[in-house]
């Protein structure tokens, strides 16, 4: 079942002591952005594969459990397979033609374009896991606020991440309660199943909106909004190793860009 516990809640993060866990979350966010940009700029399938390999090495260093990695990769692999299969069918351009099925022509360049795109999507998808496997939600929200997200929006985000597992557990418990009363959730037509779903959603939403009421009173009573220059107790600080990591990340983007666009190396 991987990272999905008894409540059906999904959290890719697991605690750990690797250097990826210790690096400032802001550096990791910048790394995700830069590596994504790099994936878009590269157009050569070999250099993209190299980038994917690099990302996998980082994932390996993050020491995520196999089940967690597999849970995340299932989605990526499905995307990639679909791209490789569907691309040549809709792109008949180029020669040589490998095969012809009625109106559909499978050409070699189209297949390569499909593979290139699939590897790029693989990079774009997997680079997120470096961040998600190694950064707790709390650190993520703080980093975003430090990077300029308004404190109140950050608070709303933190609230929603805090309540996500609660609501997942509520949904599971409601599902059980409906089943205990003889409802068969996953039987019948799609429409009937959706109707069954409403039976789960109503109590979930009503109890959630009630908690929103209580929560807003709690925020009021704890002087939310009294000062605009509010800070966190544990402010994230850039340390020397964070600065070093940041320069590596910048180099990772700048060096290939230099080779490709200045020296004209076909990367």
């Amino acid at each position, binding site marked *: 079942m991987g990272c999905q516990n*008894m409540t059906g809640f999904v959290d890719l993060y697991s605690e750990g002591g690797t250097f990826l866990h210790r690096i400032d979350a802001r550096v990791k966010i910048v790394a995700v952005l830069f590596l994504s940009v790099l994936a878009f700029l590269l157009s050569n399938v070999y250099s993209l594969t190299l980038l994917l390999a690099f990302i996998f090495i980082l994932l390996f260093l993050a020491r995520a459990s196999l089940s967690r990695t597999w849970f995340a990769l299932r989605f990526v692999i499905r995307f990639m397979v679909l791209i490789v299969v569907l691309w040549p069918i809709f792109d008949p351009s180029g020669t040589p033609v490998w095969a012809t099925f009625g109106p559909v022509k499978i050409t070699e360049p189209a297949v390569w374009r499909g593979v290139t795109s699939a590897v790029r999507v693989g990079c774009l998808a997997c680079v997120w896991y470096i961040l998600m496997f190694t950064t707790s939600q709390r650190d993520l929200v703080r980093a975003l606020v430090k990077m300029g997200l308004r404190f109140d929006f950050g608070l709303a985000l933190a609230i929603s991440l805090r309540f996500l597992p609660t609501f997942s557990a509520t949904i599971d418990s*409601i599902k059980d*309660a*409906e089943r205990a*009363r*003889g409802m068969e959730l996953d039987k019948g037509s799609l429409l009937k199943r959706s109707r069954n779903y*409403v039976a*789960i959603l109503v109590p979930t939403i*009503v*109890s959630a909106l009630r908690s929103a009421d209580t929560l807003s009173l709690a925020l009021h009573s704890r002087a939310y909004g009294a000062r605009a220059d509010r800070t966190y107790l544990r402010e994230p600080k850039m340390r020397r190793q964070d600065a070093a990591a940041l320069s590596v990340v910048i180099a990772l983007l700048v060096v290939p860009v230099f080779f490709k666009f200045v020296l004209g190396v076909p990367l």
Partner: protein
Amino acid sequence: MIPCPTADEGPIAAMRNVDFSYDDGTEALHSVTLDVWRGEHIALVGGNGSGKTTIAKLLNGLLRPSRGHVLVKGNDAAKESVAALSRTVGYAFQNPDHQLFCSTVAEEVLFGPKNLGFADAKAVEKADRALSLMSIGHLKDKAPLSLSLGDRRRVSVASVIAMDPEVLVLDEPSTGLDAGEAAELMRALDGLNQEGKTIILITHEMRLVAEHSERVLVMAHGHVVLDCRTRVAFSEPEALHESGLIPPAAIQLAHRLSDFGVSPEVLTVDELAEEVAKVWGARI
């Protein structure tokens, strides 16, 4: 009275060497074996996280044992769907809000019997009976989740009673009820028990256990540590203490007074008063 097992009828529900672990690795039950006989009034007690709710969910198929067997009416529950098992074992959830979703109380209580395929007239009859048993007939047209906690609790219990299961499992049904409401709920359950329904009450309130249940199952760390008649369980409070359970005041007082000749085998305030009156020869 605890009904005696007869040759022609086995236990209505039973567990044989059942182990259960949740997906995240939490081991909830270790080798639990127990029999539930038709017409019993059982209290399932123990600290939080001792496995009470897990037992309840195993009995109606919401959870499936990791090892061992759950038998309902002599058949292996593994082969039955939750919907099929819910005809025999009804389960009222701990949090009433998790099972209320219809727009009126009447629809809510009808939902179960309709799912089980009762004809309309029969379903309405069962629903009405459940409503009047829980004395919430007057709330029929209200939206369930807009009611007070006590009333929501009663609607959720009524919606399970309406399915007319032979075994009723109630998960902490008295939480959030005031003393009067709780007493009324327990009277209704005792009435159903008199009619032959099996009641399994999961609770932290030892007074309700002492006053209403005939048999006590004490859970601790996933084991059944005590399974006996209520009177016996409370006459040796050490086992209860080990599981973090404290007998009700009347029973504690009786134990303190046992040096003065008061029998410690009392369960209720009334019985204690009688004992004290007998010993001191005065009428109270």
